[in-house]
């Protein structure tokens, strides 16, 4: 299982990388961690003609707190994020999620931006990005722009980057006060793509739910927000009955899972229902503390 031939560039600066991207457009595939791309190339299901390796761009690595958000460079390693105190403190949902991504060896090469730009519907990071309302900074040779998360994920393995753009930074806003969080997934084996997974946020106002976020992986074309479930929770008392109703809506109204070799759509719905209740319970615990 060897890859097909390709042209390779390892630019030493972002400027150089963007020039290459401008020149080659969609033919120039950015290579980040390669933990998804290179297996696909080994199977020859992906055959990019040009690879632009971003791994020498130190300027795209780093985690900083700025203006109430955590800014993470697109090429920051998942393992760096996993062990970052800043992340643990200011984005605990992200901190809880990352150990679920594959295995340490993968996280030693995989990047935050690479995973988000790859937009695998079964991936964990898009779900967290949607739950936290992340913002994405894209650059081309002339300019930069910020995309809202709602605009960023545009379909199965698709993101709204222009052919001459590279994702350079992601901002994860801090959660509002009185917010509890939980990330949970159910996978056949530790590190596998999950059969279903959820990122849950619960913002309380006394015992009432001021806002709720429920975002799921592997149940649609990208990260899926359970709109009706969220609506049901808003303003409700945070208790098991509300959670059960939200779970029912999430599982049977808000998602349209495809199923896969490990889980039928029905079983995925069932897991979504179970996970929703468990995640909300956990988020409530954390919000109350």
């Amino acid at each position: 299982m060897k890859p097909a031939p390709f042209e390779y560039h390892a630019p030493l600066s972002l400027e150089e990388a963007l020039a290459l991207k401008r020149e080659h457009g969609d033919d120039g595939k950015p290579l980040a961690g390669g933990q998804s791309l290179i297996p696909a190339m080994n199977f020859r299901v992906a055959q990019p003609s040009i690879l632009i390796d971003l791994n020498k761009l130190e300027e795209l690595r780093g985690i900083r707190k700025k203006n109430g958000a955590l800014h993470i460079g697109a090429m920051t390693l998942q393992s760096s994020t996993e062990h970052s105190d800043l992340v643990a403190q200011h984005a605990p949902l992200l901190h809880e999620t990352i150990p679920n991504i594959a295995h340490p060896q993968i996280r030693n090469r995989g990047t935050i931006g690479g995973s988000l730009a790859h937009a695998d519907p079964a991936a964990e990071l898009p779900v967290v990005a949607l739950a936290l309302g992340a913002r994405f900074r894209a650059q081309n040779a002339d300019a930069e722009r910020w995309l809202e998360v709602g605009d960023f994920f545009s379909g199965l393995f698709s993101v709204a980057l222009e052919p001459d753009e590279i994702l350079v930074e992601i901002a994860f806003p801090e959660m509002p006060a009185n917010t509890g969080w939980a990330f949970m997934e159910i996978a056949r084996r530790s590190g596998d793509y999950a059969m279903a997974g959820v990122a849950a946020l619960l913002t309380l106002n006394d015992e009432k739910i001021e806002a709720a976020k429920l975002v799921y992986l592997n149940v649609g074309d990208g990260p899926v927000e359970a709109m009706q479930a969220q609506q049901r929770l808003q303003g409700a008392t945070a208790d098991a009955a509300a959670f059960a109703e939200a779970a029912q809506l999430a599982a049977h109204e808000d998602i349209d899972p495809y199923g896969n070799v490990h889980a039928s759509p029905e079983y995925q719905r069932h897991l979504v229902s179970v996970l929703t209740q468990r995640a909300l319970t956990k988020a409530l615990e954390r919000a109350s503390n």
Partner: protein
Amino acid sequence: MTATHAISFTINGQPHEAAVEPRLLLVDYLRQHMDLTGTHVGCEHGVCGACTILMDGKPVRSCIMLAVQADGHELTTVEGLAEGPDNMHPLQEAFWEAHGLQCGFCTPGFLMTLKPYLEEHPDANEDDIRHAISGNLCRCTGYQHIVDAALLGAKKMHAK
């Protein structure tokens, strides 16, 4: 398409320069061009861990890295663990004593995963170790003696 790229890196402490075709996988470069056949190929899609080597001290899967990507880095393979043929690394000694291998094909991958982990976590318990090696597949041992070997290895590595 067969234009080569110049790379330089350190391998098991020694500097090395080469010119490689971009699509050559790192594991193939090590095995075929450097005769470092201790690192093995099990799946070529990054799941089994038999190809695990250290890059800048951290375990990575060399079957899903390109040789060109080694440029500027420090690589360590299983051949770099022992000081010499009669002087194995304490972790290797532990695997020997605890019968932590049968066919031995997956073993270099386990050694390269465990060495940095046990250096950092001298007090790892069985559960910690099982988590640490959950990304390495073995078909022969059922893992129990590997875990025993790791626990013993930690003791040997940190013995003064």
